């Protein structure tokens, strides 16, 4: 602060305020570009984004706050936005000025928000967005008359095309004097009185636009009782397909890159714990963080695309009734779908859900959606144990078991949501309204910008926790170093190490606990070891059965099919359907829910489900087969 004063630089704060869908974020991105950061304040899970404008010693910080409708908060987002505006959020600066955003095609609503903001008695300017759309639909706006009536500057901008942005940026940097809006309403004026005032003013300064023809045409299909569902299923399939396949090449490249670095370290460093730490603890841990980036960026890219075009609101609306029965809401659909690829980006993407209870419930059940890391486990177990027969000559039994595992996860997720909403996360469902914005072409700056910043933010926040936990887990499996007689084959050496490590000893100690599920010590060690990431289970089984695989000159699958029984395999699979065996998910959940308490709840309930599910499966399968 002192340094800045000495240099003659004073940082001023301006808050951007607007109703949801007013074009607020597009404007913010156009003004600040990528010079943004997410502001972290203690105990707050919805952070305002701060961007900086700077020019010859002038510096203005812009705060993009969650959308609000007035001065009465009804969701966590709105509470935080209002706390910032009133200077009541510890650590956040009090915004000196306000930039109120109004959508030109819905000027009345923007003016009503301005009338509420006038009560804060701060110098204010009004920014009218989407003036191009207003004109295209035959409307018109008299800016001068609006300025005269309100006594404050009015800027017109088209955020997506950058029109009017330079003027606004200059006005912000020059710190031109702004007035406090003249509204002429008493402070206690009701919503009715405010809308009446806004309607009268709007009718003097704006020629209202015609309905948007394109939106009408698209909605006739998208909201059609029958075709609407066809479109929904197609979009969902495309979304699903994209998050599964498009991120794969990038993830493969990251894994290959990490592998290359590990190889280099193993070539250049002397053998021992130090080398092992650098190669597998540190570099492996870093790898386990950045491998999530492609899916996070992609999921955010797709969600922003769906939101910006206007389809997201319609899709949420369509499935709202179904999800509403389980205490969720329409907007939960896409994060849940994302959970089938990976829980980490899916949990991050629950930010699209405005109600805190529904958002937290969605976060807590996402780990039950079968993510792609479970696939290697299922494939190994089902491939080894379930006979490759065709039921009725058509349906593969193996495919049926796989589908059953997916279905079990999803169905139990919905049941858990229902239970959570009636026990730990009660609270009336927020009234569910979705505003249907007109269909628009996405702003690429917005879409790429949000995808990019979500990735950066993940690295800065959850990434560090994941890294620390990965290293801790490395220590559990690699320490203390076991004494391996010289000349032992590498796989056999790894088996000895794993067996004598802390995790191995823990596995032996915990064997009685997992015995009712049919797990022997090898499975128990592999389960514990795969706590970092489920797919590691396969690698650990590979190490533990290495001797048998070599002796028989077969594959792990063949060895397992002799050493495991079908009830055991099914019990392991069911255990993995439920168990929260993923530190990355837990770190992200901690980050997004704001407390380890919710992580403990998620881990606890999934473990109980996994244990009871595995036990029941083992017991039933033995009784039936």
């Amino acid at each position, binding site marked *: 602060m002192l340094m800045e004063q000495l240099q003659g630089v004073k940082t001023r704060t301006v808050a951007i305020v607007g109703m949801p869908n007013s074009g607020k974020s597009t404007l913010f991105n156009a003004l600040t570009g990528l010079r943004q950061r997410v502001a972290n304040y203690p105990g707050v899970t919805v952070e305002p984004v701060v961007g900086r404008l700077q020019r010859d010693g002038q510096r203005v910080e812009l705060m993009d706050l969650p959308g609000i409708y007035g001065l*009465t908060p009804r969701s966590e987002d709105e509470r935080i936005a209002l706390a910032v505006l009133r200077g009541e959020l510890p650590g956040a600066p009090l915004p000196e000025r306000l930039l109120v955003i109004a959508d030109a095609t819905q000027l009345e609503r923007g003016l009503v928000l301005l009338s509420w903001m006038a009560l804060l008695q701060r110098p204010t300017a009004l920014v009218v967005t989407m003036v191009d759309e207003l004109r295209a639909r035959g409307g018109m706006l008299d800016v001068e008359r609006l300025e005269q009536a309100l006594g404050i500057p009015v800027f017109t901008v088209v955020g997506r095309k950058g029109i009017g942005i330079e003027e606004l940026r200059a006005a912000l940097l020059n710190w031109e004097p702004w007035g406090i809006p003249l509204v002429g309403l008493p402070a206690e004026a009701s919503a*009715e009185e405010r*809308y009446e005032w806004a309607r009268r003013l709007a009718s003097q300064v704006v020629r209202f636009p015609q309905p948007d023809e394109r939106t009408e045409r698209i909605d006739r299909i998208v909201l059609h009782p029958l075709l609407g569902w066809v479109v929904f299923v197609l979009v969902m399939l495309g979304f699903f397909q994209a998050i599964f396949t498009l991120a794969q090449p990038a993830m493969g490249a990251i894994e290959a890159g990490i592998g290359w670095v590990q190889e280099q370290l193993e070539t250049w460093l002397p053998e021992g714990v130090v080398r092992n730490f650098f190669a597998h603890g540190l570099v492996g841990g870093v790898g386990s963080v950045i491998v999530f980036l492609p899916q996070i960026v992609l999921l955010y890219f797709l969600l922003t695309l769906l939101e910006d075009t206007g389809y997201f*609101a319609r899709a949420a609306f369509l499935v709202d009734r179904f999800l509403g029965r389980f205490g969720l809401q329409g907007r939960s659909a896409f994060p849940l779908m994302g959970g089938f690829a990976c829980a980490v980006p899916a949990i991050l993407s629950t930010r699209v859900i405005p109600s805190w209870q529904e958002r937290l419930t969605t976060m807590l059940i996402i780990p039950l959606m079968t993510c792609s890391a479970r696939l290697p486990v299922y494939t190994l177990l089902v491939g080894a144990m379930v006979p490759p027969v065709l039921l009725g000559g058509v349906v593969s039994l193996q495919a049926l078991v796989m589908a059953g595992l997916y279905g079990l996860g999803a169905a139990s997720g919905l049941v858990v949501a229902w239970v959570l909403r009636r026990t730990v996360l009660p609270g009336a469902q927020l*009234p569910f*309204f979705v505003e249907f914005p007109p269909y628009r072409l996405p702003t690429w700056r917005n879409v790429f910008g949000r995808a990019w910043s979500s990735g950066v933010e993940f690295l800065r926040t959850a990434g560090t926790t994941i890294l620390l936990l990965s290293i801790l887990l490395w220590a559990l499996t690699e320490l203390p170093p076991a004494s391996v007689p010289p000349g032992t084959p590498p796989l056999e050496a790894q088996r000895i190490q794993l067996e004598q490590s802390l995790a191995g000893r823990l596995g032996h100690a915990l064997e009685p606990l997992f015995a009712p599920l049919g797990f022997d010590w090898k499975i128990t060690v592999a389960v514990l070891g795969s706590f970092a990431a489920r797919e590691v289970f396969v690698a650990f089984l590979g190490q533990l059965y290495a001797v048998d695989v070599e002796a028989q000159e077969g594959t792990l699958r063949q060895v397992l099919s002799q050493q495991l029984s079908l009830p055991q395999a099914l019990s392991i699979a069911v255990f993995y359907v439920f168990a929260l065996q993923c530190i990355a998910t837990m770190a992200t959940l901690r980050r997004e829910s704001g407390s380890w308490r919710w992580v403990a709840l998620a881990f606890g309930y999934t473990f109980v489900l996994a244990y009871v599910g595995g036990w029941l499966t083992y017991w039933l399968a033995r009784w039936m087969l």
Partner: protein
Amino acid sequence: MAEELPLTGVREGERVVVARYCGEAAERLRELGLTVGTELVVRRRVGLGRVLEVEFRQLRVGMRLSEAACIYVRRC
């Protein structure tokens, strides 16, 4: 004076005026601009008829039937 009826009883395409509210949903709707005296049109029923799309003040909003049941309107 025309008779009051819940919004759920309004046919597609019909133009009505908000008369009064019941329940909590009212506050948020009033902030959105669906104040008493506002003209609105029921545009369509979606999702197997269980949700409504309404239009007022150049804004289109989807709502559950449970919310719509709490908005009483008058035909105009």
